């Protein structure tokens, strides 16, 4: 008895849903992406207390040589000549958005006098909250710290 003609199946990978998956991934990335507004390469301190910085917080970075960069949180950071420029920059931001958070990104080896001047400028500009940017401290870091 003949059971009928054999159906021949061509092996193939189903790709119909690939575009759907890809677009779902794109939507995920578009919603979660945060652009780094300050790309200054610094060794920032490590802490155990770490609070999440609000999105679009303004940045002030201080490198080990005391060079200052500022960003309003939306544009890339730009070099400024002195601490008075940080004061005028912060004051102009606070004038439009009094609750704006500021992030201080400084190298761990920066002399404190440079940071002190920036903190003073931010206080004079009436900044309400400052985040001292840090990395997570591991147990090894904590035990080797002392």
């Amino acid at each position, binding site marked *: 008895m003949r059971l009928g003609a054999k159906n021949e199946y061509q092996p193939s990978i189903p*790709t119909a849903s*690939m*575009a759907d998956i*890809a*677009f779902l*991934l*794109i939507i995920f*990335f*578009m919603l*979660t*992406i*945060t*652009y*780094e507004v300050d790309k200054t390469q610094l060794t920032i*301190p490590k*802490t*155990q*207390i*770490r*609070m*999440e*910085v609000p999105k679009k*917080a303004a940045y002030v970075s*201080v490198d080990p040589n005391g060079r200052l960069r500022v960003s309003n949180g939306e544009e890339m950071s730009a070099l400024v000549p002195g601490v008075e420029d940080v004061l005028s920059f912060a004051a102009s931001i606070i004038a439009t958005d009094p609750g704006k958070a500021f*992030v*201080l990104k*400084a*190298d*761990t*080896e*920066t*002399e*404190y*006098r*440079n*940071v*002190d*001047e920036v*903190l*003073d400028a*931010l*206080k004079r500009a*009436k*900044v*309400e*909250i*400052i*985040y*001292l*940017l*840090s990395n*997570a*401290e591991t147990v090894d870091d904590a035990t080797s*710290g*002392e």
Partner: protein
Amino acid sequence: MKFKRERVTDEIPTSSMADIAFLLIIYFMITMTFTATRGLDFAPPKDDDNPPIIEREDSVLIEIQPNGDLIVDQRPMRLDELIDYLKPKLERNPEKPVIIRPEASAPYGRMVDVMDELRQGKEKAGLKEEIRISLPTQREIDSLWF
């Protein structure tokens, strides 16, 4: 003569959609920063017409030397001894301010270490309230204390 009519079916060409989608995914993956931006939050005191006058004797003064050593109330101390020293004082007076005063040439990272340790004080020492940390700038010290 009979002409063969070619049938044209209406369709949107979607064959390159997956390629475009994956290119976008690659772009987002490269530009994305996975690490959440976090840091030690610090709120400068708000403007007050009548700021409380704090005598140095009523507070704990932590000085940070240029080499990173700590002098607490004029006594050398290690960072891990700080909370044990503060605990009895803060149990007697939870509102006692703890003033951090780094030397101008002290490393910024050391100040962050001290602030991180103090922020953990409530949990480590089992205190009822957060430690009141004060980080006056050099201008404030010059204008208020001397």
